[in-house]
């Protein structure tokens, strides 16, 4: 029944057919993210570029919103991907799931078009409802917020109900509760208040408790599934590790929220709470590295999908360095006072989002394409030595590390000149921004950004062609 080497939806189960739709939109939005990132990076170097047409604020908003939405699409796709295998039951509301996919995608399209062509509105609540909420990362207008909540409720129903009717595994238990928390937290960002301290207090609930708690647990679930699939690690081992990771992630991440409450008007006790718990946040990420690398080593790295395995390892290290080390560097208030709101944050943000999330979703793309082509061979000895996926892996990771280090250099200049010497005034800000070291950092960021784009193009090309016409079936990893 499997048609080897050909893209055939008969190779997929119901949930997986829906998953590849989510993956397709995710890749397109990933491309949009890279493009608008390059545009905004270029505006640091040539401020008149697209001035008054697509201003920095617009490009940057599309850049970060495309990021959030493509990762969410990647997560929803990954969940639908593993749902039927994990539960050993058909998705209960697949038709509804399909409908919601189209509704959500249409809504995302309209939001982006409004961002690009309407951009701003008058200072009224109607602007927040219809155009742009003006709050970083969750700029989506309120009508879209409501649409997102309804859509994810449907996905949640599908996941919870399918697991309930089928097999309720350990991964299922964590996933269902995590999705409930992930979607519930979004509600904390759906109201207007004039008091900016209260505004940012709840805004961080959404941003932090997503990125540094529920998303991390989501990828831990995907990692558990991925290691079982690719390496054939036993369920008992991955699920025990999953519980350890949940305990460590939520144990450090929930109160680690406090590291965003140093300077927004909140009381001083958040210094101790935020500093202490956020400093612990790298620990679960170390655990994930140990877990993934140990399991790979224990099986002599023999696996059924080399690109996916490589991206899982890239995830383990990227998560540890990007979210863990780069976050830890400036999480203590004594340091954060000088780094908060500088290119330090951008440096950390880039490596963390890429290392923790983009990487593992790319691993899922490779698992997806392998099955879509009927379960083809994706181990060693690929045609042309698999140069495309290897170069894509190298260019994307090197490009990202280059951007991260370049922005960190610029961030150092800001901490020193703008904050420490000039006293954080506007003139201090300008003095740092025109410093040659800062400007060099911005140039290198753009250069490495182009390298990243080349890697992205190769990645898409590889995903479209890998396994095409392949006559060997995949090695089975699941026995181990």
């Amino acid at each position: 029944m499997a048609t080897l080497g050909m893209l055939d939806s008969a190779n997929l189960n119901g949930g997986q057919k829906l998953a590849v739709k989510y993956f397709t939109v995710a890749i397109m939005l990933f491309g949009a993210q890279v493009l608008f990132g390059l545009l905004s990076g270029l505006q640091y170097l040539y401020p008149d570029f697209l001035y008054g047409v697509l201003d920095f604020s617009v490009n940057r908003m599309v850049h970060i919103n495309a990021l959030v939405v493509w990762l969410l699409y990647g997560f929803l796709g990954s969940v639908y991907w593993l749902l039927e295998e994990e539960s050993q039951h058909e998705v209960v509301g697949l038709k509804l799931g399909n409908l919601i996919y189209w509704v959500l995608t249409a809504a995302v399209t309209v939001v982006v078009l409004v961002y690009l062509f309407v951009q701003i509105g008058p200072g009224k609540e109607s602007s927040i409802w219809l155009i742009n909420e003006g709050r970083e990362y969750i700029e989506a207008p309120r009508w879209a917020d409501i649409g997102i909540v309804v859509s994810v409720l449907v996905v949640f129903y599908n996941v919870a109900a399918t697991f309930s009717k089928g097999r309720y595994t350990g991964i299922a238990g964590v996933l269902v509760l995590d999705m409930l928390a992930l979607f519930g937290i979004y509600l904390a960002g759906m109201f207007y208040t004039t008091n900016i301290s209260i505004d940012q207090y709840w805004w961080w609930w959404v941003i932090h408790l997503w990125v540094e708690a529920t998303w991390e647990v989501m990828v831990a679930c995907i990692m558990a599934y991925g290691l079982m699939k690719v390496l054939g690690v036993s369920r008992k081992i991955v699920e025990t590790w999953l519980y350890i990771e949940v305990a460590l992630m939520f144990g450090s991440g929930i109160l680690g929220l406090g590291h965003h409450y140093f300077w927004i008007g909140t009381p001083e006790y958040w210094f101790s709470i935020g500093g202490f718990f956020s400093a612990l946040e790298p620990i679960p990420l170390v655990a994930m590295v140990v877990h993934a690398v140990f399991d790979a080593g224990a099986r002599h790295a023999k696996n059924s999908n080399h690109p996916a395995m490589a991206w899982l390892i890239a995830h383990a290290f990227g998560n540890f360095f990007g979210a863990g080390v780069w976050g830890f560097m400036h999480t203590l208030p004594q340091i954060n006072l000088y780094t908060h709101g500088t290119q330090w944050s951008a440096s950390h943000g880039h490596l963390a989002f890429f290392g923790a999330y983009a990487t593992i979703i790319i691993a899922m793309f490779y698992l997806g394409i392998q099955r879509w082509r009927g379960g083809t061979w994706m181990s060693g000895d690929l045609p042309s030595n698999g140069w495309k996926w290897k170069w894509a892996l190298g260019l994307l990771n090197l490009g990202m590390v280059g951007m991260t280090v370049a922005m960190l250099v610029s961030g150092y200049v800001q901490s020193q000149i703008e904050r420490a010497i000039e006293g954080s005034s506007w003139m201090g800000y300008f003095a740092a921004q025109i410093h040659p070291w800062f400007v060099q950092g911005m140039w290198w960021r753009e250069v490495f950004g182009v390298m990243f784009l080349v890697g992205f193009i190769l990645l898409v090309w590889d995903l479209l062609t890998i396994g095409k016409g392949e006559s060997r079936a995949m090695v089975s990893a699941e026995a181990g």
Partner: protein
Amino acid sequence: MATSQWWASESFWRKTAIWVTGGSFVALMFLTMDTIPQISTGSKRVPAYSVINYRISYKFDETRHVQVPVIGAKEPLFGKELNEEEAEALVKLGKLTTQSKNCMNCHTLLGNGAYYAPDLTKSWLDQYWGTKEVREVQMLEFIKDPSDKVHNSMGRRMPKLEITDEEARGVVAFLKWMSSIDTNGFPYNFKSIEQEN
């Protein structure tokens, strides 16, 4: 293998995960209940909107060893004293304007946002505005049309964002009110405009 050890068992870690998560969340709820009243409008840390009727300075506090906002003599914004409702309406207009014009994707507010333009937390007090006599007019003019003003040597210019006069007044009110929030000394070592008579 030591899988029979209690500390390596699945059920031990499942229970640990549940208790740690639950415990952390309960702690966060209690902390939130303590924090919200302390940052509500009209509290010590986040003053009422009518604070725009007064001079706001940013002074070094000997005991805390950071700069803190100090509310001083009466100095109504645009020379017109507002009651609490009027002040709130004006600051609200300003806050809504900063959101609908997407200020946060170039600027930072309380240190959060984008890094393409200066932080706005204490912008009301910035020496950039010259003297306190011309500050309000300068700010209004700037916000309404900054596109032809070369305000730094980077070549970056803020675009004209179709901000009306009333909205611009709201934004100035919002910025003045925001400068009165006790941000635990952020931004550090800030050099404030001269405001003494």
